[in-house]
């Protein structure tokens, strides 16, 4: 069979978000892969510049549906750094608590997605069923299953009480039991192991060179974890270990994620036993003093990075977001080298991609004469679309004067 290039995306059942991959295959083997980003550019950074810091927080939270607490905390940390606000310890602990609950829900979600990508729908159904336990906890604590809106500048919005703590501890016990079961499945089920091990290998050197982050890096034995490297919220006071694995493949990434689930349960127990008393927020000014700050946060997918620049008004001058998926995308083409087409979905899924969060900007390349290459102005775009419809669909749109 001759070499063929097949398009995977922007619309494809294995991708939950629009992104375009062109895979050249020879039979079932992948020869090369190119990807094209930017299908879901939402202009969030620019929109942030038009809104106040408080409004931005809710906008930033909507960058990602899965790691919404990640983005809002990361942004708020930068703002608080510029404003010189010291958040109360109780607030820091509760931020970590919600962060860990979010990690649990994200990893359980990933486990299900991974199962689905290799056609193991039973695993999907069970892990998503168990994920409901943590979703209910998040709804109980924050008022919503996603987009928790628990952060506010200078602290958090909702306190937790003794009843909540009891409920969380009970749920965490159940989840721990379930996670142990998944670890057992992951080490016993032959078809699962066969589909995951040896697939999408990324060596330690490559992980380091290509700047992999999160579980992708940790599965290549690269102990890169912002919670340890640059502690934020309450992580400096908590005792946990960075889960790493030496498998270097998708199987390793699975083991790292289930291992991290177990660590998260331990972290949550520590947070709840050591939860300090006191206020949950300090009063924040509406206008933030001029300055700039970068903030890092360990999202379930890896290191998230936000940059905020303030000019002294109540609106930021510049906000920049780098989602963890962007850091991991470079590794994907390395992982796919000499792989099978059948492994394509699981290799992509193994970095836990969040393409909509990644798409930050479109870069226009300037010609030497100053014209934007490939860019069309409004009028030209309109004429082009009318012509296109006339030619391809036989629809004649009347051009209004």
């Amino acid at each position, binding site marked *: 069979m001759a070499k063929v290039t*097949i398009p995977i995306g922007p619309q494809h*059942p294995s991708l939950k978000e629009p992104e375009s991959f062109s895979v050249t295959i020879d039979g079932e083997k992948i020869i090369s892969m190119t990807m094209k980003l930017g299908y879901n550019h939402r202009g969030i950074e620019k929109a942030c510049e038009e809104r106040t810091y408080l409004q931005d927080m809710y906008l930033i939270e909507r960058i990602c549906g899965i790691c919404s607490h990640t983005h809002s905390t990361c942004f708020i940390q930068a703002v608080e750094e510029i404003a010189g606000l010291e958040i109360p310890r109780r607030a820091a602990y509760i931020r970590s608590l919600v962060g860990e609950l979010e990690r649990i829900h994200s990893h359980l979600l990933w486990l299900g997605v991974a199962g689905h990508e290799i056609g193991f729908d039973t695993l999907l*159904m069970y892990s998503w069923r168990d994920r409901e336990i943590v979703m209910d906890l998040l709804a109980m604590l924050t008022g919503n299953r996603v987009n928790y809106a628990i952060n506010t500048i200078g602290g958090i919005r909702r306190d937790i009480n003794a009843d909540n703590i009891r409920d969380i501890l009970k749920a965490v016990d159940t989840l721990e039991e379930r996670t142990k079961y998944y670890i057992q499945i992951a080490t016993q089920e032959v078809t699962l192991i066969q589909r995951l091990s040896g697939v999408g290998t990324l060596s330690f050197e490559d992980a380091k060179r290509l700047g992999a982050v999160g579980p992708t890096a940790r599965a290549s034995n690269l102990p890169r974890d912002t919670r340890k490297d640059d502690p934020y919220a309450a992580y400096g006071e908590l005792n946990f270990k960075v889960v790493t694995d030496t498998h270097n493949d998708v199987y390793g990434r699975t083991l790292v994620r289930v291992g991290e689930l177990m660590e998260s349960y331990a972290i949550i127990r520590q947070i709840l036993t050591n939860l300090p008393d006191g206020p949950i927020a300090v009063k924040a000014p509406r206008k933030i003093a001029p300055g700039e700050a970068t903030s890092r946060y360990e999202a379930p997918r890896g290191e998230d990075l936000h940059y905020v620049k303030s000019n002294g008004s109540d609106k930021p001058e510049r906000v920049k977001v780098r989602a963890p998926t962007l850091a991991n995308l470079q590794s994907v083409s390395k992982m796919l080298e000499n792989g099978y087409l059948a492994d394509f979905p699981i290799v992509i899924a193994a970095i836990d991609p969040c393409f909509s969060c990644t798409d930050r900007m479109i870069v226009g390349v300037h010609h030497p004469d100053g014209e934007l290459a490939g860019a069309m102005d409004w009028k030209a775009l309109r004429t082009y679309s009318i012509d296109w419809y006339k030619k391809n669909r036989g629809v004649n749109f009347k051009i209004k004067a």
Partner: protein
Amino acid sequence: MIHSLFAIFIFPGFLFLCVISLAAEFIDRKVYARLQNRVGPPWFQPLADMIKLFGKEDIMPEEANPLMFKGLPIFALAAVATAFLYIPLWSPESLFSFDCDIIVVLYLLTLPTIAFFLAGWYSTSLYAMIGAIRSLTQLFAYEVPLFLGVLAPAIIANTWSLSGLIAFYRIHPVLAACNMLGFFVSIIALQGKLEKVPFDIPEAETEIVAGSFTEYSGRLLAMFRMAIAMELVVGASLFSAVFLPFGFGLPLAGAIAAYIVKIVFIILLSCLIRTLFARMRIDQMVEFCWKYLAPIALTQILINLLIKGMVL
């Protein structure tokens, strides 16, 4: 004449097959859901899906060969429905039994897979083409174990006809227990024929959209779906005749009940298999079939040859 036509098209032919296929699909989907701790679809869901598909527009790729594109679903459907006529359901004799009908049934059951391959090939779509090639590759892997498994009981019975087989095992019911290895192999190979997990490689939705059926829609897709649903029932009926040749001597109501129990059992087994496993890769699938399934099937043949030589 009228009687034959009624038998072919109404009962126990095509229309009856349609009804039990939809029922089988419902059982399969409902049990699959319950095994996954879900509620599952209501009883009319498979029928509703069919009606919906039949009501939809047929879209054909510009480059596709219209004759092949439109003809192949009918071909697949006809092949499966024909195979059904040669399988004894509850009476020891099938509608049109003749000598060597077991071979004919097996080959008629191969035809849908060939139709899937051709359908994919003539769809002129990349995904469909990859799906088509995978169908064919997979066919070569599971077909031999399936044939060996199904033909093993015939070796003891010393006949190539299904009714002869049933007649033999009615006299020697204990010997049917010797074929369990072949039954095991055939059930697994059937998953490949039905393109279900772990062998749903040709239509792996996360990889190649819908494989051969990517370009199909509306009525033509409905026919393919119907053919697959019927294949499950025909396969289960064949296995129940070959491996579980019990209950044929009972009075009509009892025999029909025995038939239903047997095919439901086989459908449940198939459903359990697709619940428990992840989809294999095509290379792993071929390796599995030749390394494990084929030798097990050959062992069954060996056992049966020994039994035939020593016991009978």
